[in-house]
């Protein structure tokens, strides 16, 4: 492809225009060329965006609005055929949800607390493992490509195939994990229950971290490839060792990427439905009852979609609040650093 610049060549269309218009001056010709382009530019970008906008409207925006409307209605199974006919209940769905003394509100609060704890632990561990691996694999060494493929495989697997395998591993009687820690190492006097009771929280974290750390690894690896080599060379001339280079160059350089990465990991983990749903089936133990699964189960268990929507809206508000606060906090920190 030849590199052409607009100054080298008069556009053919302009020549045609010029011929039709009867030999205008070069200055006028440029003006006439720009006009139709401008008109086109006015509508064309919107036309190009239209399909994307339509789909987003249909699948995301409209349902969101409908969901908010539903949350103010007494939308029980009797009204599912025609949800618009369901009676308005004002805030009563919300009142039930936040009445933490009653069993329904208390269950929601429990699920919320479990989800918060799960998110903090799983995101920290995923980020830590991803960062460690990305730093250690920055330099080339024999087998690096193979190792990278291995590390990424848990993330590439379809989530259901991965979690079903973990369910097999975590069985009490015949699972691999108990075989190792009970039969082979003799660490426990009885085989542990991993999929019921309080230990299910550990199982949940284990599977979520196994699944998500490769994503952190992938993103950070990409970010670290962009750090200019000269920075390291300059640091070496100053006598900085490997550990100092990591602390002074690598970690600060990937800070902007970390800002987005941690947010994305937070949102995914907090909204995680797949891991608990596939690991425990429809009845998740209390200690692993993440909020998405909780809303799902109570909505499809009772067919009270109004209440389910109210809980979803509360969840969304919480996420918006945290995200806004997080972005405000992290960008202020970064701004201060640059000054």
């Amino acid at each position: 492809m030849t590199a052409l610049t607009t100054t080298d060549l008069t556009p053919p269309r302009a020549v045609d225009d010029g011929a039709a218009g009867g030999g205008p001056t070069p200055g006028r010709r440029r003006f006439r060329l720009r006009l139709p382009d401008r008109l086109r530019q006015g509508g064309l970008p919107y036309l190009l965006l239209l399909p994307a906008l339509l789909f987003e409207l249909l699948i995301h925006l409209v349902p969101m609005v409908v969901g908010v409307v539903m949350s103010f209605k007494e939308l029980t199974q009797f009204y599912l055929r025609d949800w618009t006919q369901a009676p308005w209940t004002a805030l009563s769905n919300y009142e039930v949800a936040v009445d933490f003394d009653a069993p329904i509100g208390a269950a929601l609060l429990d699920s919320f607390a479990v989800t918060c704890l799960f998110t903090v632990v799983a995101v920290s561990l995923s980020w830590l493992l991803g960062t460690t691996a990305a730093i250690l694999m920055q330099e080339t060494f024999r087998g690096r490509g193979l190792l990278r493929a291995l590390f990424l495989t848990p993330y590439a697997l379809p989530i259901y195939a991965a979690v079903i395998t973990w369910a097999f591993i975590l069985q009490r009687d015949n699972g691999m994990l108990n075989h190792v820690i009970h039969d082979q190492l003799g660490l426990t006097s009885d085989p542990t229950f991993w999929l019921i009771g309080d230990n299910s929280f550990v199982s949940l974290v284990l599977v979520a971290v196994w699944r998500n750390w490769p994503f952190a690894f992938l993103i950070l690896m990409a970010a670290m490839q962009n750090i200019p080599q000269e920075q390291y060379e300059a640091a070496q001339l100053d006598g900085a060792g490997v550990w100092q280079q990591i602390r002074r160059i690598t970690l600060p350089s990937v800070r902007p990427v970390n800002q987005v990465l941690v947010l994305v990991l937070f949102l995914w983990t907090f909204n995680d439905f797949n891991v608990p749903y596939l690991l425990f089936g429809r009845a998740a133990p209390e200690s692993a009852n993440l909020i998405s699964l909780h809303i799902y189960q109570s909505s499809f268990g009772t067919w009270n979609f109004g209440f389910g929507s109210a809980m979803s809206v509360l969840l969304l508000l919480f996420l918006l609040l945290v995200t806004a606060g997080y972005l405000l906090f992290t960008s202020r920190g970064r701004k201060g650093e640059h000054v």
Partner: protein
Amino acid sequence: MSETLAAKRPHRSPTAPPRSFVWTRRIVLTLLSLFAATPIYVMLSSSLKPLEDVTGKFRWIPSELTIRPYIDIWDTIPLAKYFWNSVIVAGAATVLSVTVAIFAAYAVSRYNFRGKRVFTISVLSTQMFPGILFLLPLFLIFANIGDATGIPLSGSRGGLILTYLTFSLPFSIWMLVGYFDSIPRGLDEAARVDGCGPLGALFRVVVPAAVPGIVAVSVYAFMTAWGEVLFASVMTNSETRTLAVGLQGYSTQTEVYWNQVMAASLVVSVPVVAGFLLLQRFLVTGLTAGSVK
């Protein structure tokens, strides 16, 4: 020759890293490899075991190797049907999503227009919303559309395709904008000069130059649709069930055929894992291109 040179010159430092670093690297990476690989080994080895091996105590080494599970999986549940449903749904969602994303990304990359920032931010922000928020209303909306127009969206592949294509759309647009931005504008200006319209420039110049990015986005869109569970669990029926829901069928039998479960898991994983690993480099470049912006 050039390979050996590259191998001898490490990426970060011309001097060899200290022993402490090398040993830390060896130990940590070995542990991480074990963590990543153990479940994969369990999946692979168990899929080649006879049923006695998986219903009794766990064994690291199969008592005998058999490919029987790989034959039986197709009869225990209608796996072929689920597989076909997944192929149709994920394939159609990918093609549609990538096409729509190409148009949108071209507009964002090449034009300045009112509402550009609002568009990019609002589209990206749909990624943060919990799926459960859309699920209940969408379930009802699809049912209502079905009642009103006779178009069966609920329980059909069409409804699922429509839903999945929007799941990958925001990220696809974002990645493609990064890709398109890295293609010199001079190229499409030259094409315009040669008499192409804006769409001609898009399809004759920009799209061919962005093939790696488009492939990476396609893999991402396919993986998203292939692995989705939440919407598949309520929006499919026994005819349109995808693998995400269908695979749980092995566990509802009176006896769980774990060797078959593992074999089926492996079979449904191969297409996406192979695609992902082959294209991870493109994906990394695409991610970086998008994030540089």
